[in-house]
């Protein structure tokens, strides 16, 4: 694959989440589909504004948790009933109340690990390179106090001059071109 060249997109910088959400909502309404928001902390309304409603992390977490539950419960049952049966206070070898606590712990452990790794697998991290870091204002502000909206060049509506004018209509602090 040849190296990608040219414009990645246009990046508008805002001072407040309110302005970003307003702009993102309007852009989505106006038919933009290849666009993304970048904020220093999670702004759920921004995600909703660009049509990003749900992801699969909760499902991955649930499945992981259930796997942990079943795995540990079966492991305990196998050990206590078949592999190494012990007489503990005259109780039956299959004493399920005693199995609950480790099974619960494994539910938490598997759910937690599934959430963390599922999130990484689904969001494409770790990424070694992202074109937006070519923009100095993004490097400085995206993780501190600035809010960004990026219209990507892949969008069929994208025309450099038009898109720039369009973004400026939201009165951002700045609009910069970002190269690949």
């Amino acid at each position, binding site marked *: 694959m040849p190296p990608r060249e040219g414009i990645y997109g246009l990046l508008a910088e805002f*001072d*407040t*989440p*309110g*302005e970003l*959400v307003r702009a993102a909502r309007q852009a989505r309404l106006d038919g933009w589909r290849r666009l993304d928001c970048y904020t220093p*902390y*999670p*702004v*759920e*309304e*921004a995600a909703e504004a660009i049509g990003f409603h749900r992801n699969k992390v*909760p499902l991955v977490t*649930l499945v992981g948790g259930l796997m942990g539950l079943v795995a540990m419960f079966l492991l305990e049952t196998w050990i206590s009933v078949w592999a190494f049966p012990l007489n503990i*206070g005259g*109780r039956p070898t299959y004493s399920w*109340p*005693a199995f*609950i*606590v480790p099974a619960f712990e494994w539910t938490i452990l598997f759910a937690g690990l599934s959430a963390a790794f599922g999130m990484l697998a689904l969001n494409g991290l770790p990424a070694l390179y992202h074109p937006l870091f070519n923009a100095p204002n993004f490097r400085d502000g995206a993780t501190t106090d600035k809010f960004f909206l990026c219209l990507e060049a892949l969008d069929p509506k994208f025309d450099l001059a038009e898109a720039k004018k369009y973004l400026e209509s939201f009165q951002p602090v700045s609009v910069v071109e970002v190269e690949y």
Partner: protein
Amino acid sequence: MNEMAHERHDAKTLPAELGAPALVDGWLRRALSIGAAFSVIAAGLGFLDGRGFDADHLLRAWLLGLVLTFGFAVGGLALLMLQYCTGGKWGLLLRRPLEAMSRTLPLVFAYWVVVALSLRKLYLWAAVGDVKAALQSGWINEVQAHAIAFKRPMLNPAAFTWVSLLCFAIWSFYTWRLNALGLKRDADSAASTPFWIKKMENISGPGMVVYALTMTAAVIYWVMSLDPTWYSSVYGLLFLVGQGYQVLALAIIVAVSLSKDEPFKTLLRQTEQHDLGKLTFAFVMLNIYLAFAQFLIIWSGNLPEEIPWYLDRILGRWGVIVTLDFIFYWLIPFTLLLSRDLKRNKKRLVRVCQWMIFAKAFDLFWLIEPNFKDAARNLHFSWGIMEYAAVPAAMMAFWVAYFCVQLKTRPLVQTNDPHVAEILEPEHVSA
């Protein structure tokens, strides 16, 4: 600074009229008619046995109603103190409904008086005067005879009455103090806000410790002592968490139902609703954690002093009830509240909360009824047992009516609080 100026454009304004909307009158009327209907049913059920009036089950069910409404009144007071200590916009939202719950204490006291006057009918330790004679006649067994004689200094009618009265006095003091200061705070200027935040915190912090102790004492006397032979050191905590469970469920129902009209229409944001849902979920989890911990420890120990309490509640078809209790009280709220969408959906969240209050009453039935000789290890139908549905429903309905009366007495939001400005802002500002 420029940033602030920008955001204010989007902020909503606090409605001019902050009193309870007219729909609360509708709740009040409905609660009164439901209360009246269930009172008639409860009275009728007493006669259905065909052996004269059966006051036994009526009183047991009355005790359930007392514990349930007590949970809302005193649990409401506890959550009121908790939110003064933690802060947070959810606390501002619930403050006035929680204050109204705490002010229903007189009604709970009236309910308690009936129990205090019927000690001999409800509590074995009160009914048995001469332990030796009772043992010889076969009324009580050796274990019960020993426990009743040994615990006599604690389990006697005078101690029951005085400890309960002391608890009621302490809860009344905190209710009065926090409610009175709540109004005074609103009348004061905005400059005084930091003083009031500290002041409420300083009362509530120690208040929560006092609440935990007095509530534990009350439930030990009222519920745990129904079986004089048994004890559990986590009992108070179990009820404490149970009160958080039921109070949060009711508070969500109230807040969401109030949001059909002003001022809660403006005040209730999805963020805070979601937060309340998450907090409720935490209590659902903690609840089963403690309940199961108590069971696991007693099951592991398998001691003759402790295990009969569970056997009374598992054998003789009670196994069906305890399985349903596990499903109703934990599994259903737990699995449903896991969903983020559900917690953000007003209608569905309210349905789950209504279910939780029913489940709480169901759990209390499982806790209370097997204490009695005719029911232990022997779940069987009688018309009397239906009182467990009718009496608490009537008592709860009258409690709701009284709560509505209290809710109408003051504005629904405390205005002298910095959270008011925050809660009026769009959700993304403080997301």
